[in-house]
């Protein structure tokens, strides 16, 4: 067993493990969006940024080392995460009051966890399309945060290759692997994990909107450090 020291608390872990894996097993919450324990890490959202032995790193792609000192709740680290979260909000068009994922959305829940309750940066208002060509699933790219969970779920769980990320930098966007580029012409099936894994309201099964009353949605009941990751497919 090796030991990681997180905000002064010693936690044991079995190498090899990343910092976030070690913390997750020990019940220490590290805010994150693009990480799930059963997929290969991606390191794209950077919301799990911590300071490890004095260096700022993404906890999901940094190996935990014996005796490593990790700062998770330091004020300056939290401020950086809040800025990252604010950037995610303004890069897309996240209209929480009208979004069916509200209350079950991981981006919203992490933002609340860190006290990000109002925009602090200027909105980009990018023009982003909505693809409703699939009979069972709708993609609203206004809400996509490019976490690639759908990309990995399609490849690693479903044995398909429905999604990918195209473009670079601010032009990066989710693309659908079909001749027309439309979801309705792809191999996606409603039973695929990729159809349900989206942590925000970008990929949504039809006929499930607003079925859970306010007060019974996942993050109405408990904050994300208690409730955990967004449930797959729940709106």
């Amino acid at each position: 067993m090796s030991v990681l020291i997180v905000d002064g608390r010693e936690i044991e872990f079995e190498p090899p493990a990343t910092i976030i894996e070690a913390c997750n097993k020990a019940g220490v919450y590290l805010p994150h969006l693009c990480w799930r324990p059963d997929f290969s890490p991606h390191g794209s959202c950077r919301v799990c940024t911590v300071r490890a032995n004095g260096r700022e790193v993404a906890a999901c792609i940094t190996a935990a080392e014996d005796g490593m000192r990790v700062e998770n709740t330091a004020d300056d680290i939290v401020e950086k995460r809040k800025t990252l979260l604010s950037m995610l909000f303004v890069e897309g068009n996240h209209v929480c009051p009208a979004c069916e994922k509200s209350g079950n959305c991981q981006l919203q829940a992490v933002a609340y966890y860190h006290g990000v309750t109002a925009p602090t940066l200027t909105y980009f208002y990018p023009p982003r399309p909505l693809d409703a060509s699939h009979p069972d699933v709708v993609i609203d790219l206004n809400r996509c945060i490019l976490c690639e969970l759908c990309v990995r779920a399609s490849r690693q769980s479903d044995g398909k290759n429905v999604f990918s990320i195209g473009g670079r930098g601010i032009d990066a966007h989710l693309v659908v692997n079909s001749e027309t580029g439309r979801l309705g012409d792809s191999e996606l099936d409603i039973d695929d994990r990729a159809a349900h894994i989206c942590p925000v309201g970008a990929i949504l099964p039809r006929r499930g909107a607003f079925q859970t009353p306010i007060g019974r949605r996942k993050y109405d009941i408990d904050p994300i450090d208690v409730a955990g990751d967004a449930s797959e497919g729940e709106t």
Partner: protein
Amino acid sequence: MTEELDALETAANPDTLKRVVIEPVTRVEGHGKVTLLLDDEDRVRQARLHIVEFRGFEKFVQGRPYWELPVMVQRLCGICPVSHHLAASKAIDRINGVTDLPPTADKIRRLLHFGQVLQSHALHFFHLSSPDLVFGYDDAVSHRNIFGILDDHPDIARRGIMLRQFGQQVIEAIAGKRIHGNVAVPGGVNKALTAAERAALGEPMKEVLEHAKEALELARRLFLADVDHSSRFARVDTAMLSLVRNDGALELYDGGLRARSIDGGAIFDHVPVEAYGEHIREQVKPWSYMKFPYITDLGRDAGAYRVGPLARVNNCDFIDTPLAEAARVEFRAFAEPAPVQSTLAFHWARMIELLHCAEAIERLLADDDLSGGELRSDGEMTHEGVGVIEAPRGTLFHHFLVDDQGLVRRANLIVSTTSNNRAMNDSIRRVALDELDGRTLTEGLLNRIEVAIRAYDPCLSCATHALGKMPLALELVDHDGDTIATLRRDVDGGVRRSV
């Protein structure tokens, strides 16, 4: 409407006239202003109620999935979001091919709506209008407000606050939040009420009914205190439009359309709401963001109508709760068989409805269907849905067309206050002629204009939907407040950009 009032819409020589502006109109929901143009002898030559804010919901719901509509459009308003939520929900029931909801869903929605109308009516009568009615139009402006009521008549203020609170508690229990909650889904609702929730809501019912009766008595007494003034002030004679139940009863949630003429005769009756477009059209005028609807059969000039409590209590044959029905009979005796046309009678009619809501809530809370298990119905998807409801301020129309993928292609909303636009303008012209013409203007005199508008309980932010036809100016302003660029669309549709 009369030629005398019509003449005050547009003065022949506005540039030579003095301009008096009441901005903002206070103690109403939303932003509006009144402009008066006076000649050298202080005679009123033009009077207009302008709606100065711009919304655009009909446009930006286009391209969105239809199931978002009830949640999205309720953001039109913070006072009556439940009405928009339910009107849109009724429309998307139709898009889902559902015409009959399970009893639990139907009754949950009705209870929610009664709570909404009750709280909105209480807010309007006590918080917004009672200072004028109790203290008089000329009372000092620093005293003529809800805080003055709290100081001088705490019993009245407490009654208003308690009634509004109760209505909000009904909404919260059902929709999860007092403002902008969510319960209606395509074909039904997402929750029922437990027996414990119903019991908790029923606890203050006796007090609510007592307060509602006292509120009605206050409104009635204030109207009758000076019948001549109450009957004459801001009076305009119009047709009346509302929903009524199949048997002619007052109906707030569902039913067919009924319009009565000025003399009380039927213009149309029990018209299915889907056919609203055959009977109502909307006119656009270049000086307001609010449209001017009219009854098609009567034509643009003679087709003005009113909606809201005055129209509903006038139009229905009876109210199916005993206390409100007794009050309706007394109210209607004033003018029967013609409708009561007095603008100030809105307040009296509003409190009759408030009492009806309290009685109806008490009755519904005892209904075990509220705790039933079947919450939704399904049907075959269609491409069009019309949902009509009686919002606190009057008949509210939501009409949506969707494509094969379920995305909204077109939306048309005729919001209650919009239907009263013509009448409100004529009411302020009536006041301008009767009370202001040729006199030196004072705050008290100008307040009479606002008193006339307030009687309608307008929701100005709900009612501005003229996107695509109205002149519009967009200004790009930098952080120092300097205008960098301006984009103007003229009334003829031409667009000009200046940098």
